[in-house]
């Protein structure tokens, strides 16, 4: 059987057989990436909105920096978090290295700039459109943040999905700070790297197909939710 046909068979067997090894890995991948995206959204959305509303010295530099960080190589983020959480590093006392918590931290570093930068853009457009109405309501800029974020929510779902895509697809950061420990910090992407290095290409590709399917499912769910919300509004 050729490798690619074998991969589909392997993927099917893994999914249909509810392989416990696979289920553990999928559960951990989701737990790590979803919590990272949630925490990143919590910080990134208000930050993006604030950057859209306030102008201050260094504003442009901050926006450019945030945009540039969208392209931060995961392995660099991983290395920085590794040095931070390592026993010899400033936060070593916490003992977080090689735990899922460390992987969450690394992914927050990767995802937060994406969410903040894209949210800034969305909120800025809305703000330009409704600036006068909002001002006539007598809202301070601080109080405009939640209003604008709520009005932009449909677009922000896409922003959060972009963040999730980045988190679930990256391997460089979680490999370094998690260590790819079997049953503890092994996620989909690091398992794929491991199986590839064992020369077990069908299993590696099979895991890749499962990962792709999972991301597609989450995107489909978000799309449906968006459609429903739009219909209710419409």
């Amino acid at each position, binding site marked *: 059987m050729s490798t690619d046909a074998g991969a589909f068979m392997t993927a099917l067997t893994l999914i249909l057989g509810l392989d416990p090894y696979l289920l553990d890995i999928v559960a951990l991948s989701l*737990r790590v990436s979803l*919590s990272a995206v*949630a925490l990143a*959204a919590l910080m990134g959305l208000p930050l993006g909105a604030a950057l859209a509303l306030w102008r201050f010295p260094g504003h442009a530099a901050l926006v450019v920096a945030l945009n540039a960080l969208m392209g931060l190589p995961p392995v660099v983020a991983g290395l920085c978090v590794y040095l931070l959480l390592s026993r010899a590093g400033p936060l070593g006392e916490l003992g977080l*290295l090689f735990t899922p918590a460390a992987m969450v931290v690394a992914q927050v570093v990767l995802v937060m700039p994406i969410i903040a930068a894209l949210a800034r853009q969305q909120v800025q457009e809305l703000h330009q459109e409704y600036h006068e109405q909002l001002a006539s309501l007598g809202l301070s800029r601080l109080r405009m943040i*939640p209003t604008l974020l*709520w009005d932009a929510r449909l677009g922000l779902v896409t922003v959060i999905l972009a963040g999730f895509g980045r988190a679930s697809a990256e391997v460089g950061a979680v490999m370094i700070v998690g*260590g790819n420990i079997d049953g503890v910090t092994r996620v989909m992407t690091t398992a794929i790297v491991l199986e*590839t*290095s064992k020369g077990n290409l069908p299993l590696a590709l099979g895991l890749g197909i499962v990962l792709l399917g999972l991301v597609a499912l989450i995107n489909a769910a978000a799309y449906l939710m968006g459609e429903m919300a739009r219909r209710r509004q419409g």
Partner: protein
Amino acid sequence: MQHKTRIALTAIGLIGLSLAAQAQDGEKYITLASTTSTENSGLFDAIIPQFTEVTDIDVRVVAVGTGQAFEIGRRGDADSLLVHDTAGEKRFVEEGYGAERADVMYNDFVIIGPSGDPAGITDAETVAEALTLIAETEAPFASRGDDSGTNRAELRLWDSAGIEPSGEWYRELGSGMGATLNTAAAMDAYVMSDRATWVAFDNRQNLELLFEGDEALFNQYGSILMNPERFPHLKHDLAEQWHEWLLSDEGQQAIADFEVKGQQLFFPNAKQ
């Protein structure tokens, strides 16, 4: 509208925190920095459960190159090391990072190459001769190039053959053993591998084992206990149980019993 946003953000935050908090747990475990060869061959899957059954201690393996394993150890991020670079291991103890090092097991390195064997190394008497033939014919050779134990051993072998490998034919990949074998298979290159990874490796394509058996290809693995004075935060008691178990009759037997495709991959040789 404002409080809806606040509710939404709070909910998102709570989800994030609870998911992240779940990720912590309190079971008894040690972190072991080890090599890709031991992990990729499946040795740990075979022996760690036996250790856990006796002691109730889980061993979390971070599998990296030996150079990186030393670095993890130097930073105090692992409770014990199981690596294969005896000279480097002794230095690690002398420099005060490790407290103790002991021989655990050995296997050997083998030279893999395209089945056509363009350099004709199957007829070589010694590994030095085999490497000389490869260098003379300038047949592609894939080197790990990642400061791992295998990479260090390979460089020592070139050195003792009196060759300084360089040029188009000598490719430093900077990858783990398995990844290097994948690349070598794709470009029909010669490559030096530890026997365990080679036997367990599934994507051989045109590659074959071409040279083996020279004493210079001996590959010794050692276990290192960390220095408690330098790293007071590490789990020395648990790590010592692991170290002692590896050297015990029970641990040595577990290593000897591990087979892949009917072949024993590691040979215990702890000094009793």
